[in-house]
């Protein structure tokens, strides 16, 4: 039986096999020619971790919060619980933003739903992220944090984070196809976002201090811990720390925050992508 295909065929089955193949292409391309291959996805975060721990716990003497109720008191683990989700987000955003321009030959010559390109970029980084989380879980078990019962929650949080990241990817990738210097803007914004989120510095540093930083005559330091709740990444980072470092269930507010930001992100990203998709072949 032949089916009458209408354009644009949004109702058509999403090509999950193509998505998987493109994800594999990304992953294989990433590691194919290196001797260590997949080992790099473990070595990268470990080196990152060592550098940040050295700088913050030894040079700057930052004091990590004590795990409640786990009792874990280790800056390196506290850091990496927040750093891994961030690197997943930032790699995915940069990778997916470049995915359309990098594959412009494909976009100009073959028809397929263009959203599989940014999506496969996000998925390939998700695979790395899951490997890294596995390494982290093993390390936590070694130091005595019994994370095993918490892993299902980790997966739920990861699903929400992936949805949030996917929304960003769908928003930024077509914009970068239309405006090439989005690339530089994205890198800068990610830097700002990284330091605006308590990933390497504990938010407790700012609670109840006498530090001042005046903007228009107001001291903004006391307001920061409250403002930061509106940073969606903060909720995700803290959720990972809840279940991996502290070993507790994230608060209801945190769940709501993650759910709402994931939903909004997917909606906006999806709408923007759908609007810009038809002319991608011309703009590239």
């Amino acid at each position, binding site marked *: 039986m032949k089916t009458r295909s209408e354009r644009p065929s949004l109702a058509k089955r999403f090509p999950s096999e193509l998505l998987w*193949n493109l994800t594999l*292409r990304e992953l294989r391309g990433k590691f194919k020619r290196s001797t260590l291959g997949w080992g790099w996805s473990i070595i990268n975060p470990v080196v990152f971790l060592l550098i940040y721990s050295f700088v913050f716990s030894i040079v700057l003497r930052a004091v990590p919060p004590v795990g409640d109720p786990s009792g874990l008191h280790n800056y390196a683990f506290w850091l990496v619980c927040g750093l891994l989700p961030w690197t997943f987000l930032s790699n995915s955003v940069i990778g997916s933003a470049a995915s359309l321009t990098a594959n412009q030959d*494909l976009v100009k010559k*073959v*028809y397929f739903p263009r959203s599989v390109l940014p999506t496969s970029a996000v998925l390939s980084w998700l695979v790395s992220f899951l490997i890294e989380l596995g390494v982290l879980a093993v390390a936590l078990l070694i130091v005595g944090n019994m994370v095993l019962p918490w892993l299902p929650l980790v997966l739920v949080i990861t699903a929400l984070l992936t949805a949030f990241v996917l929304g960003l990817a769908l928003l930024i990738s077509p914009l970068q196809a239309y*405006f*090439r*210097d989005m690339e530089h803007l994205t890198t800068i914004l990610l830097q700002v976002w990284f330091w605006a989120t308590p990933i390497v510095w504990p938010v407790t540093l700012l609670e109840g201090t006498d530090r001042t930083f005046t903007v228009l005559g107001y001291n903004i330091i006391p307001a920061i811990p409250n403002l930061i709740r509106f940073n969606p990444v903060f909720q995700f980072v803290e959720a990972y720390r809840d279940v991996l470092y502290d070993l507790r269930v994230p608060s209801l507010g945190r769940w709501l925050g993650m759910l709402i930001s994931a939903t909004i992100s997917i909606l906006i990203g999806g709408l923007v992508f759908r609007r810009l998709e038809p002319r991608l*072949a*011309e703009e590239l």
Partner: protein
Amino acid sequence: MSRPAVVVDDVAKKFKLFHERHDSLKSTILSGRRARYEEFWALDGVSFEVREGSTIGLIGENGSGKSTLLKCMARILLPDRGRITISGKVSALLELGAGFHPDLSGRENVYLNASILGMSKKEVDLRFDDIVSFAGLERFIDTPVKNYSSGMYVRLGFSVAINVEPEVLLVDEILAVGDEEFQERSAEKFAELKRSGCTIVVVSHSLDQMRSICEEVVLLEHGKLVAIGKSGEIVDKYLGHVRDDRRAREAEERARYRALVPTDEPAEIPLVSCFELLDDEGHPTSTARSNDPLTVRVTYDARRIGEPVRVALSIYRTDGAHVVSLNTGYGIAMGEAGEDGSVTVDYRIPSLPLQTGVYEWSLALHDTDMLHIFERAERLRFDVTPGDFHDQRGLVDLGGEFVTRGSVS
């Protein structure tokens, strides 16, 4: 009456010709608008239908919109107006090996490319051996494609695309891929697809090819459909257009050249006053049918030359292929000249043994020993249109016929 596989309904596509292209946010913001551009309709209200199982060609000059139309059919471009309805699975051969990853092996790329073209893994599993043997790459299939020669690369891409087994196949200028042997196999594969009922839309500059593989041809001009019909007729019509355009352009150039020559010095009058082709009835013509009589007439001023002349004629096809050169073999004596001092020489061809195509006659006037050229005339273009015997291709028509017998004893 089979139903249409492709319906193109009032399709229009506009492109923006940017005078200053803003690729960056900065320039967009500074200028306060996206960019200044002119609109340009690459396609303008094109409508036609393609019957299921037929092969249709799109022809037209560069910029006539044929590739744009094909891309709209392939859903790569979105028309600004109108719609294209295609029933069945579409495969577009616009670029071969698009999406190959250089670091991946041929095998991995076959699966990847096939899934981009919409095949599932199971379907590829079934056809994998066919794809590889068609491309002739059995030995290299596990080598990364970056180590492939460009020929191997394109062959693999072609092989994947053609094995998708589409119901509607869109092809852009890629029928001439690979060596002779591979082209033969490709042509066979196309024939096989046609037999199995596949609808094919082709864009090609090779008019010979269009004539032989398409049943129907659409002629586009500046984004508008000018004609649609039987491939032979439309191709001839198109050649007519091209010829008229060329004539007009040449006349314009001559006029411009003349304008450049200072008027007080009279331009030199050429020795050759007439160089033309005559048909059966003696009328001047610029086309000839294969196997029809044709006469070349040359008139020159013998008095001004003042010695015997050997007239030499040659035919070249426009792609440079040398068909024939010949000359009178002796000097035409002065005494032949008429009252006005001119000599007219006819070269009569009883049955023109040339195949369809565009050719040029060249003419030179030599002395008896062929050592000196008095004058070389401007080349004379002419088109050969198909004769009665259609099933042949190439340069010459041998004029033979087939005779079959039961057995040879």
